[in-house]
């Protein structure tokens, strides 16, 4: 019976699949796509014995742990290693990533049929999954950084999958550049920790952080810990699309829909949340950094929630909804709610994957390759009931309607905020929760309810390979929430599995739950009144808050600001440097030197006059000069 020592095989299989498809895919049936699916499927199967082993070897309430590492290469006084750690956090992520990736790949078998580069698509998916799976298992910061970058690369390759489209090429570039700006922070943070502690090993660094938090002598000083935590968070901000580095995610829609599903649910964007959760012992020693996490998360959530209200492209609404949820996860971490954040990550992963796959299904049915304007759709539930049903479940779950998964996770975040952060955080959190309910139900109502448009008569339900993943994830979204609750004596709820410091059994706060239900249902009601009965006129509301609407609809001018900075500052500065190099350094300095040699030669040649008395004068002057010099320096 395989156990935790087999965990490394889960990412390894997908790495192998990537190599096999790249090398031999073109000669295999279906371009080798099945290899990727088999690899990730096997990974999902392997996840179970790993988890069972993890739970079984631990004491009750304190799950086991397993790790190993081998030397990549020694250099100087240190050695770089590749190693893995199997603990509840990584096993949770293994489950999420393998299942979502499996669903997405099965769905893609049908969705991408007939595409050129079909094999490459699956190779990139395999590499994506493999990198993310290694990321969650990494036991040291170097390996983490390596796969962290590979995750970024895969998003670049997949967002730009249709590279013949200018917009796709630009979106891919934007995603890669933006996340790399964040990665500067991450790398500097890692190097700072190495300089102080002399190791890249997470366990050793976190042990020092724990000493610092406990007030014992530690290699880390409070200032270093804070700086390192903030720098690591900057990396997380890039990947997890936190304000002000969120701009790449909405544009990432340019990739095929299943890619969006993967990026938004299980890989890429949750990497940042995972990183902060993984490094939480460090953050715990740096309260200022935790506060920054909370503030950034909150700002992100509020801004994204408002933007999701005003956009009309289905995938863009979902993208902003992802940014909102990522903000909430960060907010939760910033309120010391590690359990809540990870539970929300879990709930969000399946719901959001389902929403994106549903959006893809809608596009597939409407034969709209790029994106669907929700104003063009409507009444589609008659044509695609399964898609409508699962999309509805996902929307309701993320809106926080009981008893779906999102309700439980939102409740946990609420609880964490309530006990650790001041009222303003709680208040804004409730505003976000309300807006979420509004825009998600707006999306569902606009696409699936109402009368069917004439031009949409041809729309049809998607084939089984696409609806099956939807149904599976829908079922999971229905039941996953109950993981929060302890059902048996051995399982006291999610809080006893993934936690920081101490395990916490599930407890239900009726007051908080009631508030959150009221907020969610209120959001649904507002959307219903606006988009179904027409009691509230969206247009008149828009008119009344016109300046605000313009601000939000222009995405808070963030894209314009960045464009301005790039055009007016960065490119201008690089133009200045390039000009300086060519004109000042080269033409002035280098050619100038050459020119002065040439011109001095031209002038000096006149002293070679050929006239004897000139030479005699020269000799005489020279002799006088030598004598004078000798007379000056000679000892008296």
């Amino acid at each position, binding site marked *: 019976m395989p156990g935790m020592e087999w965990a490394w095989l889960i990412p390894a299989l997908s790495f192998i699949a990537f190599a096999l498809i790249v090398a031999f895919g073109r000669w295999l049936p279906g371009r080798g796509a099945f290899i990727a699916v088999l690899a990730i499927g096997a990974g999902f199967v392997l996840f179970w014995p790993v988890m069972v082993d993890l739970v079984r070897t631990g004491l009750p309430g304190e799950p086991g742990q397993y790790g190993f590492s081998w030397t990549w290469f020694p250099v100087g006084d240190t050695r770089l290693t590749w190693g893995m750690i199997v603990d509840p956090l990584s096993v949770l992520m293994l489950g999420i990533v393998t299942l979502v990736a499996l669903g997405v790949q099965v769905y893609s078998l049908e969705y991408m049929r007939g595409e050129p580069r079909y094999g490459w698509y699956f190779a990139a998916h395999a590499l994506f999954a493999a990198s993310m799976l290694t990321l969650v298992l990494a036991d040291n910061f170097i390996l983490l950084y390596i796969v962290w970058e590979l995750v970024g690369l895969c998003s670049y390759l997949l967002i730009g999958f249709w590279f013949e489209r200018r917009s796709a090429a630009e979106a891919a570039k934007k995603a890669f550049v933006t996340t790399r700006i964040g990665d500067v922070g991450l790398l500097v943070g890692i190097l700072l920790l190495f300089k102080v502690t002399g190791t890249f090993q997470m366990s050793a660094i976190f042990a020092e952080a724990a000493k610092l938090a406990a007030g014992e002598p530690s290699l880390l000083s409070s200032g270093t810990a804070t700086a390192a935590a903030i720098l690591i968070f900057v990396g997380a901000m890039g990947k997890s699309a936190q304000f002000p580095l969120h701009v790449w995610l909405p544009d990432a829609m340019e990739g095929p829909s299943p890619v969006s599903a993967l990026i938004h649910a299980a890989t890429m964007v949750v990497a940042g949340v995972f990183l902060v959760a993984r490094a939480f012992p460090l953050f715990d020693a740096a309260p200022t950094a935790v506060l920054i996490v909370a503030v950034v998360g909150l700002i992100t959530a509020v801004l994204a929630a408002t933007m999701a209200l005003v956009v009309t492209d289905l995938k863009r609404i979902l993208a902003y909804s992802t940014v909102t949820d990522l903000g909430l996860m960060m907010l939760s971490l910033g309120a010391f709610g590690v359990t809540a954040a990870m539970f929300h990550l879990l709930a969000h992963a399946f719901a959001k994957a389902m929403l994106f796959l549903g959006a893809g299904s809608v596009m597939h049915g409407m034969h709209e390759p790029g994106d669907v304007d929700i104003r063009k759709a409507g009444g589609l539930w008659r044509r695609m009931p399964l898609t409508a049903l699962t999309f509805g479940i996902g929307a309701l779950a993320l809106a926080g309607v009981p008893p779906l998964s999102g309700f439980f996770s939102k409740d946990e975040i609420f609880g964490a905020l309530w006990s650790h952060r001041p009222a303003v955080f709680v208040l804004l959190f409730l505003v976000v929760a309300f807006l979420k309910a509004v825009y998600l139900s707006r999306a569902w109502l606009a696409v699936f309810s109402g009368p069917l448009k004439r031009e949409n008569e041809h729309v049809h339900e998607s084939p089984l390979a696409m609806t099956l993943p939807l149904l599976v994830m829908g079922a999971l979204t229905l039941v996953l929430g109950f993981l929060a609750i302890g059902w048996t004596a051995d399982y006291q709820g999610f809080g006893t599995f993934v936690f920081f410091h101490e395990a916490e059994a599930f407890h239900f706060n009726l007051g908080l739950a009631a508030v959150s239900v009221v907020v969610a249902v209120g959001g649904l009601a507002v959307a219903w009144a606006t988009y179904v009965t027409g009691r509230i006129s969206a247009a008149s509301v828009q008119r009344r808050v016109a300046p605000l609407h313009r601000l939000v609809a222009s995405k808070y001018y963030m894209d314009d600001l960045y464009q301005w900075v790039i055009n007016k500052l960065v490119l201008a500065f690089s133009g200045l440097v390039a000009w300086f190099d060519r004109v000042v350094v080269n033409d002035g*300095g280098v050619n100038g030197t050459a020119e002065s040699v040439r011109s001095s030669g031209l002038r000096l040649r006149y002293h070679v006059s050929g006239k004897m008395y000139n030479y005699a004068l020269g000799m005489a002057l020279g002799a006088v000069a030598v004598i004078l010099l000798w007379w000056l320096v000679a000892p008296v």
Partner: protein
Amino acid sequence: MTFFDTHALEFLVFLPVVAAVVILLVPAERPSVVLRIAWAAGALMLVGSLYVFVRYDYTQGGFQLVHQYRWLDQLGISLKLAVDGISTPMVLLTGVVIFAGTLVSWNIGQSHEGTGEHGGVPTTRQRNKDFFILLFLLVSGVFGTFVSVDLFFLFFFYELAVIPMYLLIGVWGSSSTFPTFSRTKEYSAMKLVLYLVGGSILAWVAILAIYVVSQAGTFDIEVLSEVSFDPGFQRTFFPFLLVGFGVLAGLWPFHTWSPDGHVAAPTAVSMLHAGVLMKLGAFGIIRVGMTLLPEGATTWMPVLFGVATVNVLYGAISAMHQQDLKYVVGYSSVSHMGYVLMGLATMEPIGVAGAVLQMFSHGVMTALFFALVGVVYDRAHLRDIGVLEGLAKRMGWTATFFVIVGLTSLGLPGLSGFVAELLVFIGAFRTQPVLAILGIVGAAVTAVYILRLLAKVFFGPVSPRWEGLPDAKPLEAFAASILTASIVFVGLYPLPFIRMINTGVKALLDRVSGA
């Protein structure tokens, strides 16, 4: 030691000369024969350098495969060939790049660059014979510099590697005209050679000073490294070596020969020049400067650290604004050589090891860059980023390789550039955190200009003008594959390189700390 071990290094140094002589005997009207001989010689050089790489015993360290010929006893000059942990990877680099370079030179003398000038009569430009003769002389110089443990011959080979460049660029190169300025190939060739010769004069002054002051009566580096020079002497003459060799390494502000020279040079020469010759500069700083004048190095390295940071950022920021593919790669070389200098400036085992690995990594990477730009230029007859668009659709292989090399350039893990730069950053952060951070920012700037270039030239809709563009030939794809394989190998499994470099760096830095 077997016969092969004793003579492996001579083989490498003299094989190119022999090949040049053989090519000399082939009639100029038989370019395909010349080409085949060149390929065979290139392959033999790769095999020879691989042999040296495999034979070097990293557990022993020190100088190996030593072979010494007496030459001028009165002055203490001998042809002493040997490799250590630092020069062995450089020898392999040279073998890899020259083989790939001969492969992609199939079109020398028949491309658009040389045709139609004199009504059908082949001019020198249209013959590949003279080209390969000069190229191989140059390569002999490169191998010679890396394996000489005698200052006199090191300098001799160093010059031998520079001089043929003048003709190679001046005759087979290309001039370019831009809206705001133009550069003739003659200008670029002359600037390059004057610059490098100027640098070597500085280095030669220092070498002679070392020879005279040591009073050892020998040019043997191993003997001289035992001499402890007066600290004042070291501090005075180290800058001569630093700047003298640094010119060839693209040291700011003496770098302007480099982008212009690369742009004007034909593909194989750009590959060899940016790939290998720039490493000779850095190698000179290590082998002569840091080895013989360790205290001088300790004094001046903080200055180099600052200049190297300027190199990194200045090169990257300049590259961002270039419109010509070759200028982008040329300035990116200035930037990436900055990491080599930065690593050396750390004077710390991890950083210096990173610098040496970066020398290998950048050599292979930039050779691949120039090979691919050459393919594009050969097909499209221009290199303007603003005009080329959507080539990936038509030139799938070229685009694939270009993406890989671009990712290497921006330091993507799994490829060689990452390992090297990571080590440089680790070492640099330990010594000068602020400058190290600026270096990391430079890597982010690299991402910007590389991704911009990829998006503009290869992605997007293919414009009608480039619809009929043929992809890389199998030969070119093969050359690119060899370079790519080296990049991926070092990126995933750098251990064979690192453990070798570790021994060399340890010996080097022990001398510094012992001084």
